[in-house]
């Protein structure tokens, strides 16, 4: 069994979803996209394992700062707020765990929601928006003052006499500075340059990658953590 949303898990997920009193049609439509921030999965329990025993073993995961949980029969519901950075379930904000009795034995099904995953999924859109904003801004600024000057040339600054290199630097062999005004010799920093959309595109790509990594990694990690707890003493 995988931690990914299988059709069966999806059905049970819709049933398990915390606060799912919404109309069925709405739930069905949302199901096509809610894998973005919902993590569903299931784990087989030992044949004789009761829900109480399973939840007891998982209990330390829910005894964390900012976490509240409640059990009722075969169902455990939890909520997290301002969860600690090192909380093993820090990316999740809430969820439902339910023990179901199947023909093959008891199964723990879980359905967890993560605003962090949703945020990371949307972050590339934010940075793409910033890139577009930057482009519009540069267009609004128009041509640079140098290009717009009537003569087509930059207004000449008062000539600055070139400063000779310090003898110590000459002796140590540092390259001589280029003459002021030559490309890269003056204003080598970012001053005077128009904002570029490139960094925003780079960060959009970084967050798209991070989302893919996180969606797969956190899905696996929570499955491993649940299984370790359920199998452990």
């Amino acid at each position, binding site marked *: 069994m995988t931690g990914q949303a299988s059709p069966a898990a999806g059905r049970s997920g819709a049933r398990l979803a915390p606060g799912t009193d919404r109309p069925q049609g709405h739930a069905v439509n949302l199901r096509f996209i809610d894998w973005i921030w919902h993590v569903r999965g299931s784990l087989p329990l030992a044949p004789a394992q009761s829900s109480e025993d399973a939840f007891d073993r998982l209990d330390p995961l829910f005894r964390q700062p900012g976490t509240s949980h409640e059990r009722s029969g075969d169902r455990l519901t939890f909520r997290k707020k301002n969860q600690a*950075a090192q909380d093993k379930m820090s990316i999740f904000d809430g969820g439902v765990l339910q023990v179901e009795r199947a023909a093959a034995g008891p199964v723990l099904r879980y359905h967890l929601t993560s605003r962090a995953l949703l945020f990371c999924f949307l972050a590339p859109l934010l940075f793409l928006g910033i890139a577009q904003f930057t482009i519009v801004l540069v267009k609004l600024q128009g041509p640079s003052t140098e290009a717009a000057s009537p003569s087509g040339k930059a207004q000449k600054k008062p000539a600055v006499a070139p400063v000779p290199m310090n003898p110590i630097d000459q002796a140590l062999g540092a390259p001589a500075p280029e003459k002021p005004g030559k490309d890269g010799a003056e*204003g080598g920093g970012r001053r005077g340059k128009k904002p570029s959309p490139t*960094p925003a595109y780079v960060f959009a790509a970084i967050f798209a990658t991070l989302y893919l990594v996180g969606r797969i990694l956190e899905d696996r990690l929570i499955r491993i953590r649940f299984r370790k707890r359920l199998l452990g003493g």
Partner: protein
Amino acid sequence: MDGIRVGKRVVGTQSPVTIGWENIPRVEGGPVKRLFFTWFQPVMLFALVAFWYYAPNSIAKASTAIGIGIGFKVLLLGLEWVNPRYESWRLTWKELVTDLFYVGLGYTLLRIVDSYIGSEIAVKAIQHHFNWDKFAWFTGLPLLVQAFLIAFIFDFGQYWMHRGMHNWYPLWLPHSVHHYITQLNINKGAVGNPVELFLIGLGIGGFFDFVPRAFLISGAFGMAIGTYQHINVRFNSPRWWRFLFNTTEHHSLHHSQDYESSRSNYSGSFIFIDRMFGTCIDGEAELLGMEGGRRMSIREQMTYPFTEGWKAIKDRFGRATAAPVAVAAE
């Protein structure tokens, strides 16, 4: 907690701290690992300074500096993985995403804002009306002296801006958000309210970038020293390094949950500035943050200075009989 007396102050009464280099753990492992984590910092500093000193003009550009900066941070992320200072500061996926979000804001929106209302525009205006011939004495100094002066003057300004943030409530409000981080990782320096990130970016260092090489060398000082403020790596930094430069140990104390400890080690790179003004404490802390280590969400980090500021204004001016506003615990 009894606390530890350091000069006139008693630290560690609210949260455990370790004071004195002799009490700070050393790198554990084989001789190669210990050698690496003892000499990594000095070797990188000298290598970077030498690179910028001798690099041909075609390479000595801001774009090269940005590339090296990114590569250096990736390397440091690897070191965090190999030799963490505290397991309780391990970088998780969520922490990485949060940190990089702020790094992204810094590279995009904040740069745009800075180009309109930041120090850059002021510097540009001043430069326009200034006779740089009067600065020939400076540009005639040896490159390394120029670079040190640029880095020192910038850090001196940062020291007082940072100290001001810890002592004046309107400045504390935007800075407080940064103190809600509960662990140190390589990109945590970028985490904070954008208003603060804008304020901390204000400096006079930008005056000097008409001398690119000296400016780039001074940037190497910042990168190869200041970057270690927020890092989860255990180093055996040499004694002279710890005396001169800010370290992750110093900065962890600054982020301690202990209020008195947090009022120390304000400088960015040169801890001797703190020594000059009596605010340096040599030590470290593991438990970081505010309100007992409550992790603040990005949404709250964005709004906190404004909501708290509004509360403070209402407290002060809202009621005729209001008591004076108490300075909140930092």
